[in-house]
């Protein structure tokens, strides 16, 4: 009997892993790689200890730890699929206990699917997913306690612990307990959550309850949150719990109980198909792929990807033109969108850190180093100053400028990572070594782009700035590529 149970669990997890892997592969195969652009795990005891002490710090560190592996697209897809599968399984286990029925196999997939859709939002923070997983573990452990009083003590401790470890998810924990069993004690976790949030407000950890006790707390601050997508996993979870309780307490028509599996299958399939269309922005997914390819300087693949897409999006066009510039084809194959002019080369409006990161790349390709550094710095600020992608850019630009102490500071951070220490080892010999920088084919060439005569970036327009750079360093071909494209616009 135990053996059958374990076998069922194993099959359940495997099937849901395959499901989420397939969905990721088909609809958003660069979502997790793109997540890694903004965060990674730093193997620094002091930093880890500091982070762990903060509200939600543990889940943040867990998310960082997993995100470091997302640098490999396949690893990101698989790891996330396993996490979502485990979440689905834990949800199913809890639901089964609540509903007194183990026939609700598929219902638990719904909130996990909703969670999967949130992953595709650029500003979603993966600790939200870790938080849900921790919450489910706490819930299922709670269900194993038979003694009422021990369970109550556990609930109080788990509420406090969950808030400290994972932050806002404590509210879902409290709501789950309230929905699962409406009793006076069920309000305790609710009250404790608000008390803890109040303490956090008092000490300035956050500014409002929305970021302390709701899914909004798992999104990058300062960027608009799509509330529907943000709340969906929480609401669906509570909804399926309500369904489970309904099945347990009320009479259900026989035709429903007979066709329960079939009904669940319809629900899950419909939500998968409809949700993938409604909640996964394919243009955004293409942008993520292009950005990943640009970051890795796989210019021919960028061009190929753009050729396979409808080029009606300025951001795509920016990426394509950057790739064309880098491969010295921009003068001949400059891509324009009807009605757009210079924005085909670089958008003017910086809507978010994700756009300013792209702008930093484009300026870097142009050889306009000061602007590239500026954009990278601004982007990095919004990513708590530890975006690996931006740190790499800042290291390079500071080496180009000869600001070796600042470059070293950033290198010391990246050196504490698993995936970037080799990259750092390549650049570290250039510290305090002008000759080494100048001998480097990339950095040496970029250093020659630094204007011999200083000017303010706003005092000359971009065209004149590029003309100065191109005149000073004709060897930096992509600058003249961009200029040729600009002249075509005149």
């Amino acid at each position, binding site marked *: 009997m135990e053996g059958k149970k374990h076998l069922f669990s194993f099959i359940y997890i495997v099937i849901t892993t395959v499901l989420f892997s397939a969905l990721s592969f088909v609809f958003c195969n660069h979502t997790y790689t793109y997540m890694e652009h903004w965060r990674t795990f730093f193997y620094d005891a002091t930093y880890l200890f500091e982070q762990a002490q903060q509200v939600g710090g543990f889940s943040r560190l867990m998310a960082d730890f997993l995100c470091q592996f997302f640098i490999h697209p396949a690893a990101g897809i698989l790891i996330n699929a396993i996490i979502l599968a485990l979440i689905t399984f834990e949800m199913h286990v809890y639901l089964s206990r609540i509903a007194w029925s183990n026939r609700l196999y598929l219902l638990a997939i719904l909130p996990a699917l909703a969670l999967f859709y949130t992953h595709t939002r650029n500003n979603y923070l993966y600790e939200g997913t870790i938080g849900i997983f921790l919450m489910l573990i706490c819930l299922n452990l709670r269900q194993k306690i038979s003694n009422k009083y021990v369970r109550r003590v556990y609930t109080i401790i788990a509420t406090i612990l969950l808030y400290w470890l994972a932050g806002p998810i404590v509210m879902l924990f409290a709501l789950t307990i309230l929905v699962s069993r409406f009793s006076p004690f069920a309000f305790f976790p609710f009250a404790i959550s608000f008390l803890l949030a109040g303490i956090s407000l*008092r*000490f300035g950890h956050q*500014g409002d309850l929305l970021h302390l006790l709701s899914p909004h707390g798992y999104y990058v601050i300062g960027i608009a949150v799509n509330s529907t997508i943000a709340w969906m996993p929480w609401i669906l979870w509570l909804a399926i719990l309500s369904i489970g309780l309904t099945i347990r307490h009320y009479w259900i028509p026989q035709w429903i109980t007979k066709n329960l599996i079939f009904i669940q299958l319809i629900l899950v399939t419909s939500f998968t198909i409809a949700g993938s269309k409604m909640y996964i922005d394919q243009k955004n997914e293409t942008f993520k792929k292009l950005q990943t390819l640009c970051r890795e300087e796989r210019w021919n693949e960028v061009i190929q990807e753009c050729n396979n897409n409808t080029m009606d999006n300025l951001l795509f066009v920016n990426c394509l033109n950057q790739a064309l510039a880098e491969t010295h084809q921009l003068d001949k194959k400059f891509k324009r969108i009807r009605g757009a002019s210079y924005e085909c080369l670089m958008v003017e409006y910086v809507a978010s850190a994700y756009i300013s990161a792209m702008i930093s790349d484009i300026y870097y390709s142009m050889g*306009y180093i000061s602007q590239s550094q500026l954009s990278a710095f601004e982007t990095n600020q919004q990513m708590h100053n530890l975006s690996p992608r931006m740190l790499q850019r800042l290291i390079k630009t500071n080496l180009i400028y000869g600001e070796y102490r600042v470059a070293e500071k950033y290198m010391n951070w990246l050196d504490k990572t698993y995936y970037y220490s080799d990259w750092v080892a390549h650049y570290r010999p250039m510290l305090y070594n002008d000759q080494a920088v100048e001998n480097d084919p990339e950095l040496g060439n970029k250093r020659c782009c630094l204007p*011999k005569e200083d000017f303010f970036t706003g*005092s000359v327009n971009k065209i004149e700035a590029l003309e100065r750079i191109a005149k000073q360093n004709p060897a930096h071909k992509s600058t003249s590529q961009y200029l040729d494209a600009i002249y075509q616009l005149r």
Partner: protein
Amino acid sequence: MKRIAPLICLSLPLLIACSQSAQQATSLNEDAPIAPDYKDVTLPCNMAPVHFGLADSCVYEEAQAIFSTPQKETIIASNHGSFDISFGQWKELIHSSNEINVRIQVKRKGEWLEFAPFSLYISPDSIDSHLAYRLIEPGYEYWYEMGLYQRNLENYEERSIINNRQTNNGCMNCHSFHQNNPDEMLFHLRKEFGGTYMVREGEVEKLPTGQNDIPSSLVYPYWHPSGRYVAFSTNQTKQVFHTTNKNRIEVFDYSSDVIVYDIENKKVIKTNDISGAGHFETFPSFSPDGKTLYFCSADSLKMPDCYDSLRYSLCAVPFDAATGSIGTPVDTLYNSNTDGGSISFPRVTPDGKRLVFTKASYGTFSIWHRDADLYELNLTTREIIPLDTLNSNEVESYHSFSSNGRWMVFSSRRIDGMYTRPFITHVDGNGNYSKPFPVPQSDAHYYDRLMKSYNIPEFIKGEVGTGSTKMLKVIRN
């Protein structure tokens, strides 16, 4: 005995690990490469212990620091590259002597070597218990997270006074305290809850800026010693970015004027001398007796074209607190047009004898000028000297004094040229400055890791008593 022996054997490794001893070491005759550099500094008697480590370039297998006084010796083994003396050990040392001798010993290839010893001097002068500052990334156009913080200098605790997660990510700046009093402060918010806020004895009030001739944006506040007036500057500020200049950023004013705000009557006091059309007036401060208003003044030039020709002189006008009037004439204490350079942040020492200011070769915002240094003007003899003990090859700027006038904190970017750190120096009765040191942190590598700059460090005599919750009630209304 049979029962005790295993216990002794088990405890022995522990005992050995705990008891360090000074090694017979060969003298290296070179300075210990410690970071932060606390060699031969003068420390307040009530400050948290200094933690430091050996520079990354220093190669060793083991290391230890021997802190000794004539009565006491404490040996601290290197802990992941740093020597973290405990509070208890530190207290015992400073109580036994006002000079602590420190020897650093390192083991290389089995041989112990010793660097040249240095001293830590413990001053009987205490320092104000807290330091308030803003933490923000160094520069650029946008901001993300920032806040006003207070650090307990007697331990390592840092707490938020208010941060912008609480104000929808707006900008907050220009915090200032009336005579180092944590219960009387001002700060400024921009964007959604924009305005100047005053905290007094637990009550929070938004100043009626933008009404009744009171300018809407008041910056660079300086309290009159009476607490009734605050001098402000009103500026139209712009930030631009260099392409090649090592200074990276240039911040200048298109216009600026100095005004004095009467808190009691809620009105503005100004004259043409401090708010003239043909000049940029900024960075006001009062003398400790409140009878003089100091400020910086430059001929108004076309900006940004003439950014490197802009030079601020140091001026002073009489101020009558009883009548709330600004007198004449304007005394030019330093004429930048004839003597060169550009002055900012004039601050008179609490004893009223000297004035410390920042001087750069040109411009307004000295923190972005790598040549900015600290200077001192003797208010009696009018002699000006550079404070060479405090200056470095990088920017030294914003400075302020402790309530007893014995300590000065200032901003410096000497560590890496980019991130501003607070440095403290002791000022003796004769106006001599000791070697500055960075504010001690629990983690010796803290400044290497921190990705934010310290802005406007100000000593305060205690913790800010008014909580952010109370501030936010007024702010959000």
